[in-house]
């Protein structure tokens, strides 16, 4: 019987714990439970039978850890274990269903760990293919605490089978997973990816998960399942004991059944008796129908931003159009600059960030991949992927750890054909621009017509209305004054007809006119009044933010004017610093006063050459700081602070050089990388900033860097000095291999190394040309090497 049919009028009862039962049969701590499928199939069979006899409608294969990592040191293959396990379950199940169990990989995903999204996908894919071939009825992805890992598993399940996919996450008592995902975000992301059932399992008892379940039930539009533990665990003399009895467990289950959960099972500590009691207790109850309002929302892995409740700001600054510095950063692979732009937008009040990296001379797809991976780990704002290239969009929304917004599709058939399949598959929201083959319409009515076409076409792809966001597109007041208000009139027309939200990038309205700011602010206020949900705008602009904040009061969105009062009653930063005695730039650097250094550098630049500032202020100051550090008059934090101060001054100089169209300062180009397998990069980061301070150009490849990336970059960029860091004895091996490959493939290249376990002899032994005992030493090496 199919899942949908089963679920229509009945609760679906899963089995209880496998591990707990295996332990009763003699499984020891640390032993591989999946080996029982091969060595003691009758034990596994009997456990399945007990659950079937207790009333389970669906049993779970003994394959929780049947992935290539966990089987690595065993004599078994994934395929062999999965096949054996599914066969046992099918034999035991008779007319009941068999769920292929897929648990966490046991590795943490990048950037915190070293497992990449694509590698995680491959691990799960192997399990899915084996399970499907062996004849499982359902895929159950469970006990995962990283939604990114769950995403990889869901995609692997959906792309490699046509089986129904159930997916649950494990939460902590703070209502978040260990990696920080909340229940609302889980629902948004999982529903977007098209899972059939979602829910919560393991980690807590049924009582403790109630608040999490409540949050899920508030917004979920698909069936919800729970598989709690039998209470909270205590480890008593080597054994894990859970503190709830079967009736206590079943009582909590009934509470949740009444609230709307329709699928039940047990995790750690539950046994057939629990399942029997649950089944009996549910007699007479019927699953509650799910009727939730559909929300328009975008999510990062930690945060859901719902459009429509109050004005949300989509930060527009990461877009190279008309931005010299950003263009320069994109050409130089300077992701740190893009990150700093993201951070400043977050801090000034953006809720979502638009990411547009379109520059003809760069590999946009690769750049987008890198930027999305970096940003999603550093910033909890949802991302809006902005590109005219469908392959760039697909790459980004595939690896994005959340539910993205795609910017954009328009009323042209060709555009919708390209973008809608991507939006559907990854569950992203899509911005629909109201233009079509005939161009940008003049009237509100025509805008509504195009919006209707977009919304109705989306539905044929299975994309629900609420995932479409309409942009009514502004014409400039100087060129098409009569149609400026038409854009705004279209907003309520569209919103009253459909359950969609609207965005608007409004700054074009003032193009070609003086005092653009006030026009933009006025138009923004008007647009908000017409019902605009999310302006795509610059949150660093004070006047625009003032407009939005005051609108939120007037529209009764900022309740009791709390945000407003809080923001505007903040005392401005104390001006104490300004009253201090005037210091020269050298002293400012020595004292590590970051802001003053920038101001002072700007002043100096008015009548001093860039190079002279570097040579007579920055470097002498750094030398003094370095010497004081060596004499132990100051310590690491002060050294770094001074280095950051110089960096700030350097940034000002760099800006000036870009604006003046002059060559950048470069005393030599150096690659820095923390080697494959190692993720300790603080040391490398300190080396980087010091080298940059002294005018060297650093290509920072980051941490856990594959050998081929280092070699290829060195070759491509013709780099002659590479700095490698490793902190562990186990990763020095990767360092040695990297050096060997560099020597083989790029013999002109020299390598300096550093890291806690290294010393001069060890460095020589692994073939390094130079050993830097600390960051200062790396500067000396570079100076000598480049003879500066």
């Amino acid at each position, binding site marked *: 019987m199919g899942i949908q049919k089963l679920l229509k009028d009945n609760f679906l009862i899963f089995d209880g714990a496998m591990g707990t039962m295996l332990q009763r049969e003699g499984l020891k701590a640390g032993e591989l439970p999946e080996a029982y499928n091969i060595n003691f199939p009758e034990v596994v069979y009997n456990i399945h039978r007990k659950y079937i006899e207790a009333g389970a409608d669906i049993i779970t294969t003994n394959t929780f850890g049947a992935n290539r990592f966990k089987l690595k040191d065993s004599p078994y293959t994934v395929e062999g274990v999965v096949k054996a396990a599914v066969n046992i379950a099918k034999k035991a199940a008779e007319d009941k269903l068999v769920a292929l169990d897929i648990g966490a990989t046991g590795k943490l995903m990048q950037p915190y760990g070293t497992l990449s999204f694509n590698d995680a996908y491959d691990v799960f894919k192997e399990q899915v293919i084996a399970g499907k071939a062996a004849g499982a009825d359902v895929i159950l992805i469970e006990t995962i605490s990283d939604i990114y890992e769950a995403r990889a598993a869901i995609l692997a399940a959906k792309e490699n089978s046509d089986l129904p996919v159930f997916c649950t996450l494990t939460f902590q008592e703070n209502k978040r997973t260990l990696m920080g995902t909340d229940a609302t975000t889980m629902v948004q992301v999982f529903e977007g990816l098209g899972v059939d059932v979602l829910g919560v399992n393991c980690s807590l008892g049924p009582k403790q998960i109630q608040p999490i379940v409540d949050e899920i039930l508030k917004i979920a539009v698909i069936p919800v399942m729970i598989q709690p533990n039998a209470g909270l665990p205590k480890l008593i003399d080597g054994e894990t004991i859970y503190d709830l009895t079967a009736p206590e467990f079943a009582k909590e289950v009934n509470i949740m059944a009444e609230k709307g959960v329709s699928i039940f099972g047990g995790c750690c500590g539950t046994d057939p008796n629990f399942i029997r009691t649950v089944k009996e207790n549910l007699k007479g109850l019927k699953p509650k129908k799910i009727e939730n309002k559909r929300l328009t929302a975008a999510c990062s892995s930690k945060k859901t931003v719902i459009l429509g409740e109050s004005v949300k700001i989509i930060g527009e600054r990461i877009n190279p159009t008309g931005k010299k510095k950003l263009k320069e950063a994109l050409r130089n692979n300077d992701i740190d600059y893009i990150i700093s732009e993201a951070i400043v937008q977050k801090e000034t009040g953006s809720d979502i960030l638009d990411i547009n990296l379109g520059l003809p001379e760069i590999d946009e797809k690769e750049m987008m991949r890198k930027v999305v991976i970096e940003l999603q780990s550093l910033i909890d704002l949802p991302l809006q992927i902005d590109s005219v290239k469908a392959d760039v969009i697909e790459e980004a929304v595939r690896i994005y750890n959340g539910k993205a917004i795609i910017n954009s599709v328009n009323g042209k058939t060709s555009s919708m054909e390209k973008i809608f399949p991507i939006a559907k598959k990854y569950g992203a929201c899509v911005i629909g621009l109201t233009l079509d083959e005939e161009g940008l319409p003049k009237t509100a009515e025509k805008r509504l017509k195009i919006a209707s076409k977009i919304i109705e076409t989306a539905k044929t792809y299975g994309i629900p209305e609420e995932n479409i966001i309409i942009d009514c597109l502004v014409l400039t007041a100087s060129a098409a004054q009569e149609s400026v208000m038409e854009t705004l009139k279209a907003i309520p027309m569209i919103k009253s007809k459909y359950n969609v939200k609207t965005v608007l990038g409004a700054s074009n309205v003032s193009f070609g006119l003086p005092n653009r700011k006030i026009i933009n602010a006025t138009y923004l206020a008007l647009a908000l009044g017409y019902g605009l949900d999310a302006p795509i705008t610059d949150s660093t602009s004070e006047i625009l933010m003032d407009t939005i904040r005051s609108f939120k009061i007037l529209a009764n969105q900022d309740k009791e004017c709390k945000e407003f009062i809080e923001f505007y009653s903040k005392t401005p930063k104390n001006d104490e610093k300004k009253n201090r005695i005037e210091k020269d730039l050298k002293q400012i650097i020595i004292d590590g006063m970051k802001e003053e250094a920038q101001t002072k550098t700007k002043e100096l630049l008015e009548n001093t050459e860039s190079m002279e500032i570097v040579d007579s202020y920055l470097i002498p100051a750094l030398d003094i700081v370095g010497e004081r550090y060596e004499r132990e008059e100051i310590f690491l934090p002060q050294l770094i602070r001074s280095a950051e101060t110089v960096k700030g001054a350097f940034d000002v100089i760099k800006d000036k050089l870009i604006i003046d169209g002059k060559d950048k300062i470069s005393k030599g180009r150096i690659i820095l990388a923390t080697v494959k397998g190692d*993720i300790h990069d603080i040391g490398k980061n300190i080396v980087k900033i010091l080298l940059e301070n002294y005018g060297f150009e650093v290509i920072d490849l980051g941490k856990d860097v594959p050998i081929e990336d280092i070699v290829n970059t060195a070759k491509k960029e013709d780099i002659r000095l590479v700095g490698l860091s490793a902190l562990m004895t186990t990763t020095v091996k990767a360092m040695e291999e990297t050096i060997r490959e560099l020597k083989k493939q790029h013999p002109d290249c020299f390598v300096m190394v550093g890291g806690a376990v290294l010393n001069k002899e060890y460095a020589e032994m692994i073939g390094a040309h130079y050993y830097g005992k600390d960051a200062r030493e790396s500067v000396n090496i570079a100076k000598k090497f480049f003879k500066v």
Partner: protein
Amino acid sequence: MRKHLDYNIINKNYIKLVINKNEILRYLGYRKNKVDDITEEIINECIEEMFEIARTNFVYNIYDIEIEEDSINFRNSSFKIKGKDIYKHLQNSEKCAIMAVTLGSEVDERIMYYSKVDLTKSVIFDACATTGIEALCDRVESIIKKHAIQDGYNTTSRYSPGYGDLSIKIQPNILNILDAQKHIGLTVTDSYILIPRKSVTALIGIGKDVKDKKVGCMDCRLNQNCLFAKEGDSCGNTKIIKG
């Protein structure tokens, strides 16, 4: 009759740690020198922030052990360890506690974030977290010790993979036997690095005849390069546990 050392050993709740600011300064390279005002201010901020976001999760379990010539076997499990140093450490023990503790991935996230926006703060935050994880280890060790003493035993000091000839390659086995990923979200990479980064695993011997033993710099792999050891100091992992 065998005495039971039975108590709840999985902790998911936050426990208040006591952070010693001098320890943080030591990690940052300050010896007896006075810290400058700005650094001190950042340290205070970091401590406060760390308490806000750090978890103090731990899991441990106590096993009866059999000591054979070259290996120590943990009863009711598939776990065994080899090595002359750990043999020496546990030779008088009847039981062994295995513990794993972590401050959680939020701390890693924060350090990573600051490494992009404020490197100084990132380095200081890292040092605070290192102090934090040591403090958590001390706390868990004292819980184990307290219970052991109540039951008439003594304990050895903590012994972690990476000391002496106890390889860090044993980390996956330790996490596995404690089911540490499930209980506290602790994982290990192919290079045997624990993730979240601010995490520790350790063994503590328990026995009637156990005497205090110092684990110190000579047991440490980094001894040759250690900046602390060069000055006759230590990183703080050197401890004598009084019985």
